[in-house]
């Protein structure tokens, strides 16, 4: 089990969801992914992604310089 920080700040094209999809591919069950983004669309995208893939969003925190989405991989 590992925690991986994915820094997608500044990425609007193709966007943070690209980095999340890639991290998911390389992750194992039990891992945590912390996704950093400056794109507000990441909140809805991460939720839709988690619902579709059956994984869990543990928290979404909005900080002054970034949005942090914490994801737990429970399904692959």
């Amino acid at each position: 089990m590992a925690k991986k920080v994915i820094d997608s700040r500044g990425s609007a094209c193709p966007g943070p969801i690209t980095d999340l999809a890639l991290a998911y591919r390389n992750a194992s069950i039990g891992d945590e992914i912390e996704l950093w983004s400056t794109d507000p669309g990441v909140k809805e995208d991460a939720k839709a992604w988690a619902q579709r893939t059956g994984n869990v969003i543990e928290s979404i925190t909005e900080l002054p310089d970034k949005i942090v989405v914490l994801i737990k991989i429970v399904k692959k």
Partner: protein
Amino acid sequence: MAKRLVIVGAGDGGVMLANRLASKGFDITVIDKSNKHYFQPWLLHIAFNGAKEKSIEQTKLLPKNSRFMLDTVKLVDLENRKIVLSNSEMDYDYVVVDTGSFGDYSKIPGHMQLYQEFGDFHSTTEAAQRLWKKASTFAGGKAIIGSTYPIFKCPPSPLEAAFLFEELTRKRHVRSQTQITFITPFPRAYPAEPMNEIVEPIMKERGINIVTFFDVESIDPAKHTITSLEGDTLQYDFAALVPPHVGAGIVKDFCDENGFVKTDKETLQIGNFDDAYCIGDATNISTSKSGVTAHLESKIVAQRLLGIDARFDGRTNCPMEVGGHKATFVIGSYTQPVVKLKPSTFNYFLKMGMKYGAWQTLRTKMDFVMDWYFARTDPAKLNAKLNKQKSS
């Protein structure tokens, strides 16, 4: 003595950089394993319109006072300022890595066989011709088009392929017998939301089914099925898939798990080295892998090598055809969201114009036009204009 600048890889960025610095007192060597420079966007038109290859010898693009070496670089050792070639080694004062990105057909089981059967529009002329043979003789059935993996060159290209294939089936009168499915690992057809709002309705209008969150895990070429990590399986009679892309992985200690070079997204320096830069598809920067990005990055690195503190702003400007002689551009930056730019015939001719202007652009002879264009299409200005229109 002139500073020795070695450019590893003669992609668009490498060629442009050599031209930019040709008269600035550097001793320039450009190394590439091929002496042929392809106009890569044209692969799409070979695959879906039966167009002819567009290529040129590297030496015709590079400045006369630079040296071109036809060789394979095995390793770039930044600590020891050494480049390892197939049978020799060389030193440098400055190195710029422009080794590009490539399709890796070994990442997905069954993909290599599918590639051998159908080809694609992301690798070679032969593969694009193979796809054209399939596309131009397709008698109807299930067609699957899209990207297999989250990292690939030219983000608009899978959508362009779907639009051009759909148009082809109409021209060939097999549209009614054809079911077209677009697959993507992302939550929508185009990952950047504003552009998706433009292209998704066009796809729906043309009857192209969109299957999102479809990250290809395996392909069964015998059963003609594609299965996703998310657990879905689709049947195909025709498939045009973009392969997972990886980097060359030759920069010692500075490559990520996919072989891309760990590059500062603003200074384009590799690690903390002030004598080593990376441009184009080879970087691990979270921006589009495209010729435009390489073009703009070559300007930044040229300035930095001349002692100016230039910084890359993440600007993208990727053309996207939607069929019917119309195109839009995906324009954004690190700080500006992608502009919601509607397709137009004017943009289509701008895109097609690149076919004729490509070599002169690479020789940096078109900089005066391109600079004017980039300033005029600044994403901050375009977004402000669109917001003003929306509110009035």
